[in-house]
């Protein structure tokens, strides 16, 4: 079946046209995932955080992670500068000095200008996780009830697609270990299974890191944001709705957006702060759907039930058979054997 040039060009034009139409992303997306029924989460309130890093050391202890040194090899401290194969949770500081040379300016906590603020960084346990979608061997799974995103090193092949895909840069690989594995916060699933709190929520002195059901945490966040700055408020500690003595303090001026409510399809770790969260390192110009809706949408469209490939294969087999048959006949006639 020879195609003449005109037909070929027509086909191509039709192809290009339809391809551009498909470019309308929404048409191809798969359904976004929903929050699991008993989704647990964490509310991190940067205005309450004092940067004591109790959460970092509790995390290291609870998960048996080694200390990490940045810089001189004989530094005694655990001084990670970022999440890594040894650090599942890190506190960072945002600092803005309008005029670094000025000596009489005092930086104000939680102010975006001439201010400073703390930020807690670890897995956000997304509702529609990119890592779970990307992993070819289900080494990343999302618990259907609690929504905790866990990593299973016993299946992982170390391809690092999860590292590549995560929009928050969370999974890290142990590059300096010949038998390294991916490391990321597992929300202390092993402790939660025993009815305990995740280590970071357990030790936070101010309640900046608060554990609870995601829906309840969202309500708590809304309550805090609805109050006027300066009002006294009772901030719970440890677990929302628990019986630990709370921490009474004043409401700060919150940035009126709870990060994780909608971003990238929603996350189970929620963030609130005195400034927009992109200053604290979270991506804010992101859509309201998770990226897996796009990549899986393409895959489903092309490969659902392997229907399209089967059809294509049948067509190809037919065409190739016909074409090779022709040359078979030709060779048989001239007494030559062998094909290809």
């Amino acid at each position: 079946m020879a195609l003449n040039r005109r037909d070929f060009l027509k086909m191509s034009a039709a192809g290009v046209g339809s391809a551009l139409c498909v470019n309308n992303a929404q048409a191809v997306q798969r359904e976004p995932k929903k929050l699991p029924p008993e989704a647990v989460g964490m509310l991190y309130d940067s205005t309450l955080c004092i940067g004591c890093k109790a959460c970092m050391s509790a995390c290291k202890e609870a998960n048996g992670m080694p200390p990490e040194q940045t810089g001189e090899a004989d530094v005694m401290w655990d001084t990670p500068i970022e999440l890594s194969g040894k650090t599942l949770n890190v506190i960072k500081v945002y600092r803005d000095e309008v005029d670094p040379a000025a000596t009489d300016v005092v930086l104000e906590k939680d102010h975006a200008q001439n201010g400073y603020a703390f930020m807690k960084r670890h897995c956000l346990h997304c509702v529609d996780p990119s890592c779970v979608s990307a992993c070819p061997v289900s080494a990343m799974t999302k618990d259907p009830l609690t929504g905790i995103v866990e990593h299973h090193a016993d299946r992982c092949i170390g391809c690092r697609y999860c590292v590549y895909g995560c929009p928050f840069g969370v999974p890290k690989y142990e590059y300096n270990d010949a038998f390294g594995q991916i490391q990321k916060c597992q929300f202390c699933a092993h402790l939660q299974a025993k009815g305990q709190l995740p280590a970071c929520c357990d030790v936070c002195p101010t309640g900046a890191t608060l554990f609870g059901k995601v829906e309840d945490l969202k309500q708590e966040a809304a309550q805090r944001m609805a109050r006027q700055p300066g009002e006294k408020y009772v901030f719970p500690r440890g677990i929302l709705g628990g019986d630990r003595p709370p921490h009474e303090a004043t409401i700060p001026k919150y940035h009126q957006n709870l990060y994780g409510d909608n971003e990238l399809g929603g996350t189970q770790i929620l963030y609130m702060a005195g400034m927009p969260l992109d200053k604290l390192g979270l991506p804010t110009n992101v859509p309201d759907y998770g990226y897996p809706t796009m990549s899986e949408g393409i895959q489903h469209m092309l490969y659902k039930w392997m229907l399209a490939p089967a059809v294509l294969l049948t067509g190809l087999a037919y065409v190739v058979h016909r074409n090779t048959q022709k040359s078979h006949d030709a060779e048989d006639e001239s007494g030559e054997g062998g094909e290809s």
Partner: protein
Amino acid sequence: MATKISESDTHLDGYVNGLGGITRRDFMKFCAAITATMGLPASVSWQIAEAATNPQRPPVIWLSAQECTGCTESLLRSTHPTIDQLILDAISLDYHETLCAGAGHQAEDYKHQSMEQNKGKYILIVDGSIPVKDGGIYCKVAGKTILDHLLEAAEGAAAIIAIGSCAAWGGVPSSGPNPTGATAVHKILKDKTVVNIPGCPPNPYNFLATVLHFLTFGRLPELDAKNRPKFAYNRLIHENCERRAHFDAGRFAIRFGDEGHRKGWCLYKLGCKGPETYANCPAVLFGDVGPASWPVGTGHPCFGCTEEGVGFTKGIHELSDLKTVTPPITYPGISENIGQGATIGSVALAAGIAGVAVGAGAVVASRLGKSSDDGGEEEQQD
């Protein structure tokens, strides 16, 4: 330099007897200690020595308002200088209700005499808060409200020092319902410079060093926005605390007597107000009795006695706010530079390979020629 030293040598020899038997060495040690407390260079101690032994002892009027006498008690326990060295040799304490020998009208008369004779030259020191409610009747001395005493004494004062939190910002009496209308001295004397030495009680050396600085140089030391001497109140307790390492490592005592408490861990969770209190307690301690002789050092959270809005206002076990991000060595920034970019070696290698490829391609292209006729030379190479 050598000449100067020998001058001072002979100069001070004459003071041996004038210092009441104190040896020159001990006296110089005292001046050096005061200099160090104020963070001044060592060479200044000579000037302090000279000022302290000035036969013309400056007069000091000490007014006590709504006070507990704790500031005076604190002063009594100083050792460098001792209180007797101070009031007998350095200053002329013309009026102090607790310490002066006289009493009643005699003391009051002497005060007025001193104030008139030394008008414009005496140092006024006030401890205790000034009640202003109901006309100030809640504190009266010699039939007059302390408020009036203060206004009168402030007129001819060369310098005014408010010692103790009560005088500096109101202190204990000003907390809660404040039934007496207890007010800070500087709020009464609005048009005058009042040096505040807050604390409950303040470390006596903060006060002594300030006074000696004034006597030596004729001016007050550098003050912050709340008129507190910067050498003592410029930094948070949190910035100098010996337990800061524990804070930074997240090790907290949760209850008095628990394992963390016994190990000397940070007291933040017990309500330590160090992160929002400006004072030098961890550096100068109290009572000259050795290390850890301050509240946190003994295992009790700081309650912010120097700080208005914190001391006697916030609950002792209420968590404090954090006023600074002055680091331990490492808080990583939100976005640090990470990862190995191009090194000379790798760029050179990559460039080299690219060069070889381009060269090979050029050679091949030239060998291929412009048409299918030339090209295909017989070479035994790949």
